[in-house]
């Protein structure tokens, strides 16, 4: 992609390296082989406890995913958006948050939800069709899942503008300062809303971190359809920094996200993180990726499995014993049981209640519709009895 017309900057330079392995700009602290490496800017020490915590989070998150996928196969969920392969990106990001930070997720942030302490059962409601993912977002500062691609990035930016107005940025008190994180996918980066959120965030220097999981695919469309340069460079065009991190490396993701959040909290404005990862499963349980991608790719990415590499590292460095794995296994089983049983007993929504959710207070108009419907339903019961 060089420029024979000699117009402007050298594009080869701007475009950067091929994207297949993330390129040299990829921030990494743990290689796919479980080798600890260092980075001039984002290096960090982790305690054994922290690492075991990450490991546990990733394993349990994967368990949630596996259980939910099975529940869908058994007809208990209408659909499920799998996160298989993206555990490190989500746990790294999720664990970097402070309690006061606020998260705007897409529909796939099951791992981040886990870090926020949301009962994973609550995630199933949307996919089972018993609610719209109707948890209280203020409970764990974890917003509602958003299905319209990219819409939540503007909400995050506006929320961050609110935080600024509340005087909770750059106070000097790290336990008061707040940051907002907006999750979205590589495909989402093409939406007008996402680009507008960059503009607003830059214009107001809002304390928001744009966290993009580049899992290489937007359903069947490869990342090359959305951008011809590494995605993290998009941010530079808007005047704030972008970083590409190995999204299958929980340490690196944690380190980079933590730095970005700190930056936001301290009043230094927005930043963009591209967590370079791979969607190992289907887009959702209704998707058939064999129609559009090569098995070889999948096999290659399996070698970069986020859980495996941390396991190798923990083992190799004697940070873990068999009991840890056994306990975790038991915990995962317990979690699976919780989800299976819980899912089936999620209460079905009530048709008449729906009229009452539309507004803070039901309108006469809606009440009349509800009452009419109730009378109609009763007339049936009368007939039947």
């Amino acid at each position: 992609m060089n420029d024979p017309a000699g117009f402007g900057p050298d594009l080869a330079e701007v475009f950067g390296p091929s994207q297949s392995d993330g390129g040299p700009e990829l921030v990494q602290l743990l290689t796919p082989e479980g080798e600890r490496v260092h980075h001039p800017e984002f290096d960090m020490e982790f305690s054994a406890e922290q690492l075991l915590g990450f490991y546990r989070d990733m394993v349990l998150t994967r368990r949630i995913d596996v259980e939910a996928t099975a529940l869908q196969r058994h007809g208990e969920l209408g659909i499920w958006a799998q996160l298989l392969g993206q555990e490190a990106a989500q746990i790294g990001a999720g664990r970097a948050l402070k309690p006061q930070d606020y998260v705007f997720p897409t529909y796939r942030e099951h791992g981040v939800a886990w870090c926020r302490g949301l009962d994973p059962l609550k995630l199933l409601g949307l996919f089972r069709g018993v609610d719209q993912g109707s948890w209280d977002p203020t409970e764990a500062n974890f917003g509602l899942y958003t299905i319209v691609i990219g819409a939540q990035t503007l909400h995050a930016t506006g929320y961050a503008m609110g935080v600024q107005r509340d005087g909770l940025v750059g106070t000097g008190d790290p336990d008061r300062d707040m940051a907002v994180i907006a999750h979205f996918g590589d495909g989402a980066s093409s939406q007008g809303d996402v680009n507008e959120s960059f503009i607003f965030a830059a214009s107001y220097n809002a304390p928001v971190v744009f966290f993009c999981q580049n899992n290489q695919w937007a359903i069947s469309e490869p990342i090359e359809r959305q951008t011809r340069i590494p995605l993290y460079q998009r941010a530079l065009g808007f005047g704030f920094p972008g970083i590409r991190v190995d999204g299958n490396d929980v340490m690196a993701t944690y380190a980079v996200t933590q730095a970005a959040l700190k930056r936001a909290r301290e009043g230094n404005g927005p930043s963009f993180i591209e967590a370079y990862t791979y969607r190992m499963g289907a887009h959702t349980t209704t998707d058939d990726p064999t129609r559009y991608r090569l098995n070889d790719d999948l096999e290659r990415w399996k070698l970069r499995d986020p859980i495996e590499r941390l396991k190798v590292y923990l083992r190799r460095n004697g940070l873990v014993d068999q009991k840890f794995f056994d306990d975790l296994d038991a915990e995962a089983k317990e979690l699976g049981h919780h989800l299976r049983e819980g899912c089936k007993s999620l209460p079905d929504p009530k048709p008449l209640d729906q009229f009452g959710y539309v507004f803070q207070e039901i309108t006469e108009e809606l009440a009349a519709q509800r009452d009419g419907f109730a009378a109609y339903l009763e007339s049936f019961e009368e007939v039947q009895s």
Partner: protein
Amino acid sequence: MSEAGMSTQKITLAKGLNMGLRKAMEADDKVLIAGEDVGKLGGVFRITDGLQKDFGEDRVIDSPLAESGIVGTAVGMALRGYRPVVEIQFDGFVYPAYDQIVCQVAKFTYRSQGKVKMPMVIRIPFGGGIGAVEHHSESPEAQFAHTPGLKVVACSNPVDGYWMIQQAIAHDDPVIFLEPKRQYHADKAELDESATPEPLFSSRVVRKGEDVTVLAYGPTVKTALKCAEAAEQEGRSLEVIDLRTLSPLDMRPVYESVRRTGRVVVTHEAHVNLGMGSELAARITEECFYSLEAPVLRVGAFDHPYPPSRIEEEYLPDLDRVLDAVDRTFAF
């Protein structure tokens, strides 16, 4: 200000809205204004004139030129506990924000089963008659009224402007707030700030009559009132109702009127096809079937896009076209 005898003054609609916004901002420091040119310029219609000067740039926010961004960030501010009042510069420029309005603003409360409040006001100067170019004279109300989760109101006069904007801002659900832009600087009315306003979501009989009910809102209320005067000359008594609220509709005074008159004409600047008139006609016919002497007749914009401004007055419903419809209700 509100001392006895001192509290009335003659104001335009623009002034009423400006005063109402100021009151709302004074009353609650969570109230924010956002939009294009709302700051130093005071908006292209000067509705926010002076507010940034007095309340600062953090509360009167000049936005980048991106309507989806304006509404989308306002959603975020509302989630953070603010009460954003968004200005869309002209009716025709609300569409880039349409997705955020119908999929996000309208649905947050429902989606969360009432746990999330979305107290947002989206102000839209609407309607034609100002000699403008394309996209500056639209009447998008039916599209919002069709969307559950949004409330839609239209003011028609300075005093309502003053009260309704405050009520809309104080309301906990999202309100699409339509302002008849051709009226901004047209007529003055006496405002008594010590009065008690009617509820926001109520329609109002603005002229009593016996023979035909004329339903109007926003810019056509004035037209309807003029019709009533003209009709009176001809010995016909029109009852004029200013609907004020388009969603929810306040049908009680409408039904009450129609049961007396048996004849209805609805007039709005929006296209007739699937405009508010369709819904009103359908509901009235269903509810007052045996009272009707004639079908509900609708007088609105023809079903072509808003025309070049030199002929807009022939396109918009006017006195003659409404009176013609009134006549026709007697021809059935």
